[in-house]
């Protein structure tokens, strides 16, 4: 997807999730040449793996795939997948930034692969599917997921036995077991960091004993169970494949908790939990669903009404922070919580528990030409230009600069594109059409 010669671009966007793609599209539509660098094998980021999204309940694919598709077809956008950014050296005095990237081996030649999946069928090795958080299986060589872009195979060297079965069936000789990582230096007039977030792991709070039960899920795992093309095709609990009928959501399980080092609010957990509860009540209509919460932060446009709808649907909202979770018989889980409704100490048994884990900064955002704030997210330097970082000509959008929902990330991505375009003009990079004015 990139010619080795294209090592000079107007803008380099780090991260091909929804924020990065929106920034790239807005810059490219202004006739700037944009390179999107994505670490994973496909663009689409976290959003493409979601089921439906609040508050409109559109399917996530319906919003993400068109943006992925537009970016991949845009004449001004080049996408490099499987590529990590190693170092960003900011350009001072109006000079471009220098970005060192490493294209990791995919062991499949993207120019040759036609995405026919014959390799996948021929491969004898099954491995846990990372896209499904290991809830489903895929082959050691496979197309990452149904609507991946590029829709081409990737080989996982951890699992591959080099049996040669895939290479035998590949009609275009695209498989290259000997591919090596390749480093490239890129010169970019501006850089936008849209590196996204990590999920605080479910094991972070020891009192919840998540490592002892398969029936404690993180919210992104539940997204896969709820997704129409998810691993089971319906919602089953992992330990025994039973249809759950008494499900608990534990809010603030990985945020607003000094004891786990995340004192801040992760901003999205209330709303995604309410949404998941609503989707579950559609997928498993007979199930009892309870949300244990501290505050419901339904702050955005249409969010409060969404919350009220969930209450009207019969979802139970219990105010109280869950103190501990213990595995009991039948793979069920017992939640201990003081209800603030009436002060009773509740010990409620549930057969599936979702810990609404918070958003934490990506470990690898460091050293990329930006300064990190005390919360670990990219520091924003200017209150009247919220997407500006401390690095000259380097901007940020989406969860790289703190937890954010999709709506706010997309608006911020456009804002970052606006600031980045201004930086380009200031430093003399003017696209052809701007001279018409």
């Amino acid at each position, binding site marked *: 997807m990139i010619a080795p010669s294209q090592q000079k671009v107007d803008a380099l966007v780090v991260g091909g999730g929804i924020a990065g793609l929106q920034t790239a599209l807005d810059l490219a539509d202004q006739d700037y040449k944009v390179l999107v660098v994505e670490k994973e094998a496909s663009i689409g980021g976290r959003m493409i793996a979601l089921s439906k999204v609040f508050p409109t309940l559109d*399917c996530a694919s319906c919003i993400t795939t068109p943006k992925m598709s537009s970016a991949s077809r845009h004449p001004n956008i080049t996408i490099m997948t499987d590529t990590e950014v190693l170092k960003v050296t900011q350009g001072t005095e109006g000079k471009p930034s220098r970005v060192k990237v490493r294209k990791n081996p995919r062991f499949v030649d993207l120019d040759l692969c036609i995405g026919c999946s014959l390799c996948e069928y021929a491969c004898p090795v099954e491995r846990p599917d990372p896209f499904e958080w290991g809830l489903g299986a895929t082959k050691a060589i496979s197309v990452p997921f149904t609507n991946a872009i590029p829709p081409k195979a990737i080989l996982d060297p951890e699992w591959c036995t080099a049996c040669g079965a895939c290479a035998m069936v590949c009609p275009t000789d695209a498989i290259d077991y000997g591919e090596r990582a390749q480093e490239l230096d890129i010169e970019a007039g501006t850089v936008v960091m849209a590196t996204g977030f990590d999920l605080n792991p479910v094991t972070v709070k020891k009192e919840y004993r998540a490592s002892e039960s398969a029936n404690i899920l993180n919210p992104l795992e539940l997204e896969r169970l709820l997704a129409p093309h998810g691993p089971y095709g319906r919602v089953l609990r992992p330990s025994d494949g039973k249809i759950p009928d008494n499900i608990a959501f534990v809010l603030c399980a990985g945020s607003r908790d000094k004891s786990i080092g995340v004192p801040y609010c992760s901003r999205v957990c209330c709303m995604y939990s309410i949404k998941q509860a609503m989707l579950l009540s559609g997928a498993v209509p007979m199930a009892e669903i309870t949300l244990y919460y501290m505050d419901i932060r339904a702050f955005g*446009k249409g969010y409060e009404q969404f919350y009220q709808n969930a209450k009207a649907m019969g979802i139970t909202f219990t105010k109280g922070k869950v103190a501990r979770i213990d595995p009991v018989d039948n793979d069920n889980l017992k939640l201990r919580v003081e209800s*603030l409704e009436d002060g009773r100490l509740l010990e409620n048994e549930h057969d599936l528990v979702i810990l609404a884990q918070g958003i934490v900064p990506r470990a690898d955002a460091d050293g990329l030409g930006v300064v990190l704030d005390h919360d670990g997210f990219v520091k924003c330097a200017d209150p009247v230009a*919220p997407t500006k970082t401390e690095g000259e000509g380097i901007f940020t959008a989406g969860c790289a600069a703190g937890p954010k929902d999709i709506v706010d990330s997309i608006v911020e991505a456009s804002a970052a594109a606006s600031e980045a375009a*201004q930086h380009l003009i200031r430093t003399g990079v003017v696209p052809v059409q701007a001279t018409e004015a």
Partner: protein
Amino acid sequence: MEPTPNPLESPDQPKIGVYICRCGGNISDYLDTEKLADTVRGIPGVTLSKVDTFMCSDPGQDRIVQDVQAGLVNRVVVASCSPFLHEVTFKAAVRRGGLNPYLYTHVNIREQGSWAHGHQGDAATQHALHMIAGGVGKVRHLQPLDKIRLPSHRRVLVIGGGVAGMKAALDTARRGLPVLLVEKAPQLGGRSLDLGRVYPSEQEARELVKRLEKDVRAEEKITVLTGSEVTAIGGFIGNFEATISTGSEQRTDAIGAVIMATGFTPYQPPEGEYAFGHSQVVTLPEFVKALRDMPSGKTLTWNGKPVRSVGLMHCVGSRQCEGCFQPQPDGQLNDYCSRVCCTSLLRNAVELRSRFPETQIYDFHQDIRTYGRGQEDYYTCASDQGVTFFRWKGEEPPVVTARDKGGLAITVKDQLTFGEEIEVPVDLLVLGVGMMPGPIADLVDQLKLPVGADRFLQEVHPKLRPVEVAVAGVLLAGTAQGPMSIEESLEGASAAAAKASILLAHDYTDLEPFVALVTPDLCVGCNACVEECQYAGAVTMEAGPEGKSVATVNPGLCKGCGACVAVCPTRAIDVQGWTLDQFDAMIDGMTDEALRVPATQG
């Protein structure tokens, strides 16, 4: 522009491809998409029908591209979600295949099919079949069309000179486009001028305003008109015309795009709501301004009286439950969250505690929504500083009464002490009032802007097009769209500027060709269409050949509403892409009794 003839596009031999989307399961969980595809194949002219899990994905779109390129189809129908989401996507795929994109019809079998009638089993599938048959009927009669290209004014009007308006103006101008920034008040800065320090940066709001204003004034591409109002505005993308009044003077400007940065109005409680009207009850904006300008001390004073305790009331004019509050003139309650009041109240609680250490604070909330970066710190800090919190349920708001011995009593059923009823005496009550849209009814009316149930301006789609409205060329910046913080308003403003720069990237605008078209030979010059038309100048009578009067359409002004079509006695006028023949064919398809999906066995 003459359409390019394309040998594939001969209407005599329609080869119709029908593509049915499962939408992951949104459609196929309820409708039998495979049966639909099988049945549709029997309709005359349909040469192929296919089902895909996500037609909007790359492989889905490629099906269309490849079939068109292979000459298998020369008309395309996609049956999927609302055209609002993906009509553009599929038209682009049709074009990539080498076909005129207007030889495409979109059928909505999700919002109008599986989501609406999903529980009706075979009947729902049958209903979808008839909708698809209607689409097939229409597509058979479509003609290739081309967009209407009109010259556009590369100039942006920003209405409102608050922080959002200034930021939008600045970003747009720095991107190379001339900007007119119109502000009603005599000075720039809007409501931020009345604020003190703002979260999360803890900068003086007036400093932020000063910085923005300095940049705005220094930018030669920006014309600032303060003390001015847009008194009339009309037109369409690339070609708006705005009349701006400054005192008794008026000017008229040609504009390509409009950014609405008209801001908000704080909720004004009716007399008596939480004892509003009492001298010791004050709204948050008034309190913030007063606090900013008063000297610090041991105890706060208000109206000359020492204030030993302050009550902070959340959700005033927001998250209102039915029966508890007086509705707005339109009969609606403000049921939405105003997003900024929680953090703003707690930020000021922290400031109060530090500046007036002997004044106690009691906070009355439903939920504490300190959601944003750095905001939770204010909550934690307020707790650490001894602010006492009470929590009420939406349907049981606290009751505030004046006490005989002065001050106020707040009675709350406190959820933090398990519903215990507590009476809290306070010397001053601050009402955390929410946001309401600004008074912009005239602009809404003249530009025909969509407004949501919350009365704020309504974006096209919160994720697909979050700062655009359905009226092309009009963009949203800041709180005109809904409650937001300063930081969020600035980002919305920058986003609007980016979109304006994209819309006006060139000195022309391409409009959809769905406008009225006259067949001059059939026109009898009766003037009925001109009389019926709602859009001044869209259709006029002009002298035709042989001195006969003939209706003539201005495609820039015509909205394609079809009112003229309905009154024409001779069928001389039609809307391109939506002709009467096409409607006839749609209805024939939709009512074709012979079309049946086989019933599900067992």
